[in-house]
């Protein structure tokens, strides 16, 4: 039997946004762990609803990236040639993590507003909704690497040992994505325009990030501009490990985690400050 005690005072619990405090992070970890079963159930629900009434059902999580890869391979090996060998692998090694990022963001931006009816009726920590949206996309991300591995074998691209390094950029990517989703999910509660803006920002961001091209294509005197983009460090880790068989240099790894934790601190800090008011605006 669960026995609980709750004592609630008035108004907003936290006066200011606490950004660079470790307390914020431990709270996030603690709450996520406590509600892990609920988060998992919500993530599975999301996947189930996404693939409802499709004959192939959950197989689409695998088929989607596989078919996308097929299209990319055909387009870039016959129509557009950049002179990069095995361009499909070059591209997909960063396109798959990017797809995870952009899909998580597009789903999670609606996660609070979309669960508004629930939030108005059930007392439940609000963070479970964006986290569940990201978790459901993590499942997709992991599954999408299976067809990529098959493609690497099929195209006779070397299957590097550096694949084993992938969990590191994946962790940084997930932390970065979580931070961004917390911020946008909270902002969308107050201004519904945010959901639309996110789509535009994402498509602009896609072209400003070396995904379909490489940073080497950029004149050296302009590269610093691209290096301001917080997501390139983590994406670089994916491309190096899968396509080049190299490990990123440690400043690059450090930069990817610094960006990831900055995003998480700011995003969750803002989310946490406003979460008790969401119920009045959804």
């Amino acid at each position, binding site marked *: *039997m*669960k*026995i*609980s*005690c*709750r*004592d*609630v*005072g*008035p*108004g907003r*619990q936290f006066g200011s946004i606490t950004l660079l405090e470790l307390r914020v992070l431990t*709270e996030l970890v603690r*709450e996520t762990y406590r*509600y892990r*079963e*609920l988060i998992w*159930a*919500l993530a599975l*629900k999301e996947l*189930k*609803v996404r693939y*409802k009434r499709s004959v192939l059902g959950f197989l689409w999580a695998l088929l989607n990236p596989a078919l996308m890869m097929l299209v990319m391979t055909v387009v870039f090996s016959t129509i557009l040639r950049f002179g990069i060998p095995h361009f499909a692998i070059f591209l997909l090694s960063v396109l798959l993590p990017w797809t995870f990022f952009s899909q998580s963001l597009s789903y999670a931006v609606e996660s609070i507003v979309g669960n508004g*009816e*629930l*939030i*108005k*009726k*059930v*007392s*439940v*920590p609000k963070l479970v909704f964006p986290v569940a949206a990201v978790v459901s996309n993590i499942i997709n991300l992991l599954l999408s690497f299976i067809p990529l591995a098959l493609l690497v074998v099929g195209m006779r691209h070397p299957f590097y040992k550096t694949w084993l390094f992938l969990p590191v950029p994946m962790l940084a990517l997930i932390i970065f994505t979580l931070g961004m989703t917390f911020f946008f999910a909270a902002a969308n509660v107050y201004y519904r325009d945010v959901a639309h803006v996110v789509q535009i920002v994402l498509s602009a961001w896609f072209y400003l990030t070396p995904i379909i091209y490489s940073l080497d294509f950029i004149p050296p005197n302009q590269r610093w501009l691209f290096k301001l983009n917080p997501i390139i460090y983590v994406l670089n880790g994916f491309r190096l490990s899968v396509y080049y068989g190299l490990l990123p240099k440690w400043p690059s790894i450090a930069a990817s985690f610094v960006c990831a934790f900055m995003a998480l601190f700011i995003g969750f800090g803002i989310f946490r400050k406003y*979460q*008790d008011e969401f*119920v*009045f605006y959804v």
Partner: protein
Amino acid sequence: MNLSFMYDLLPMGNLAVVKLENVTQRFRVIHDRPDSVRELFSKVLRYRVSYHDLDAIKNVSFEVPQSQTLGLIGRNGSGKSTLLKIIAGVYRPTSGRVHVEGSIAPLIELGAGFHHELTGRENILLNGLLMGYSKKQMREREQSIIDFAEIGEFIDAPIKQYSSGMHTRLAFAVATEVNPQILILDEVLAVGDAAFQEKCFARIQDFRQAGKTIIFVSHAMPSVVRFCDRAILLEKGSIVADGDPTEVAEIYKSLLSPEMARLVQH
């Protein structure tokens, strides 16, 4: 976090398990109905939003001791649901303190956590998790929930195929089978056929005998008089009467227009 759980044993006895002190809940009602595009633009440009503040709950204090069945009555818009949401932790009050001891099913409307694409079985789990129970606890109770709700083989069908009666039966079964110490019931007994209603009444009586605290919202005065030890009448966000259910129900009837009061009596 708006819930701070303490896993600790509580002393038994006639303690107040729900305690509200000077609770006020203010809502900002925003009038954003620009009649024309021009008006919309002028509003956006001047960054002026017209609104008024509404106190849905005004300075309300009361205590509910353990094992009491409290009936909350009042007209539509009197603040009953807002008060329940404050007790359940959905709203954080604008001012005042709320103290709740003991496990509480934090659901206002039965079946609020149900998703129509999921099966009955999946919804039992999801609903239980939303109420703060573990997967293991829900698995243990699954069969008795299914039995009580009389769902049968429909349990593995998506609940969008359920009749509204089945939906309510399942929701009631989940909310009560998890065995909370404080049970909040909002207008639940108005639905379901007579046989199931009797079953629900029987279960509520079991809860009372087991010494649980029940907060019961209803417009049906006979049920309030039948079940409750005490009734609170709300009007415009304030408590206007508190005491014996029969007497409070009489005051409630006097608030209604004469013809409405006749309807309530039946």
